């Protein structure tokens, strides 16, 4: 059985239905008979089914692979476990700090970011399962330059930044507080900067979730444009390593487009900073991680962080 098969579970599921009602007033060209003005009720329905179960889980990994290095066997620095409920339109992201000290299948305890280096996407999926209790259906790995290209390809994103921060290397002029538009480079910098944030890696993971919200909003707003989803899938295939087929990527993209932004919940697994030997690590709050996994597994929704 290949690693691909081990990671992939049968895509499942069913759908969602968001029904909204809008009305439009249609005015006839002639003004001779104003009583001809009629009210046209237009109703709208949408739904997607991408497999056999309601919720599909995707592990999104930002690899720090250097040029020429296989990004599937480098350190995974951005780790977000994303669940999409195609029945209800809800979605959730559980972020894990990269230095979290966890059990990696077949490799003992290590920082979770090394799971990709030691054991590839399958190992990273296993490490996430050990921590959160959810095995992802898909693993998608990209490297930061490719991530920048993808954000540029969709026209940039808008995020809500809770605090001003800067980084002397990645963003000297800093990011201002409030709603800000980010191109590919700035989305990368916004998602990577850690030292300037009071909560360090925990706050960085939360910023990555803000970036994901921005990407979702962009996809949702553009999805009805002919060809937008198709071009997006082509871009993902060009820039990502994934165990999803082109048809599955298309299905996932349509599922993402139908997520209701009001039903997105996010949380970062907390922990305490410590040392293993000379290495600084995060000892994750495993009980919290398991609780998040248990709460979100069936419906991709979190009530408490």
């Amino acid at each position, binding site marked *: 059985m290949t690693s691909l098969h081990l990671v992939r579970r049968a895509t499942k599921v069913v759908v969602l239905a968001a029904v909204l009602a809008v009305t439009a007033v249609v005015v006839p060209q002639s003004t001779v008979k104003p009583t001809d003005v009629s009210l046209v009720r*237009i*109703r709208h*329905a949408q739904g997607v*089914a991408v497999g056999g179960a309601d919720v599909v889980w995707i592990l999104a990994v930002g690899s720090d692979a250097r040029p020429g290095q296989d990004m599937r066997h480098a350190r995974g620095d951005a780790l977000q476990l994303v669940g999409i409920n195609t029945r209800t339109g809800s979605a959730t992201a559980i972020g894990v700090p990269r230095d979290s000290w966890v059990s990696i299948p077949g490799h003992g305890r290590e920082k979770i970011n090394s799971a990709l280096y030691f054991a590839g996407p399958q190992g990273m999926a296993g490490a996430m399962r050990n921590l959160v209790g959810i095995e992802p259906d898909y693993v998608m790995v990209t490297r930061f330059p490719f991530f920048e290209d993808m954000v540029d390809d969709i026209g940039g994103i808008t995020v809500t930044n809770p605090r001003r921060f800067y980084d002397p290397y990645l963003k000297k002029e800093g990011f201002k507080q409030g709603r800000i538009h980010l191109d590919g480079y700035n989305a990368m910098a916004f998602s990577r900067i850690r030292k300037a944030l009071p909560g360090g890696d925990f706050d960085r993971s939360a910023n990555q979730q803000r970036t994901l919200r921005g990407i979702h909003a962009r996809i949702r707003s553009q999805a009805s444009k002919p060809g937008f989803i198709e071009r997006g899938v082509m871009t993902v295939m060009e820039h990502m390593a994934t165990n999803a087929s*082109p048809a599955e990527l298309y299905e996932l993209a349509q599922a993402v487009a139908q997520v209701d932004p009001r039903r997105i919940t996010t949380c970062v697994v907390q922990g305490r900073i410590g040392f293993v030997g000379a290495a600084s690590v995060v000892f994750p709050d495993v009980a919290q991680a398991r609780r998040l996994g248990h709460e979100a597994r069936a419906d991709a929704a979190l009530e408490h962080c």
Partner: protein
Amino acid sequence: MLALVLALTGTACSSGSDPSASPERLSRDDAQASLASHPPLPTTTKIHRVHGRLPDARRKAVRHQVGRVVDRWWEAAYLGGTYPRSTFPSAFPGFTAGAERRARSDKALLTNQTRGPHVDSVTATHRSVALDILATDRRARAVTAHVVLRFESTGDKAGTTTVRGRLFLTHRRGAWRIFGYDVAKGSR
């Protein structure tokens, strides 16, 4: 077969309704009976854009096959069968099992169920489908079908109904199947 021939010869595909879903049947109650007749207005199916490389013969095949899937849904959900009626038990041919389950809860929009009991006949006046095709390795993998159906109804609730939106299809078990939809319906 006519549709197939047209698909193989034209740049735009025009397919008639599915003979097996022919609406030309009398209702059981002759007092209310009417032919749910509609002229054989063909569906115009064209390709908006192919994303990736796809040989011409396969483009034509996709256009024909997806056009037929859309036609079958329209016939089952709006145009075919006898009117008046209130039930649409098999309205979603060509949908995946999951999409069909979801669509059943959206029947008010995805079929003519709400007006069906008050309508004597329906006649299609516009049927068009435009496809965006995702292709890799010279094969079509997924299709977005942008659809517009307009039909006139006679009876207590006579009027014009427009169904417009997008259907999402992938190729499964040897056939194109609808796994998702984003559809609006309006009547006046």
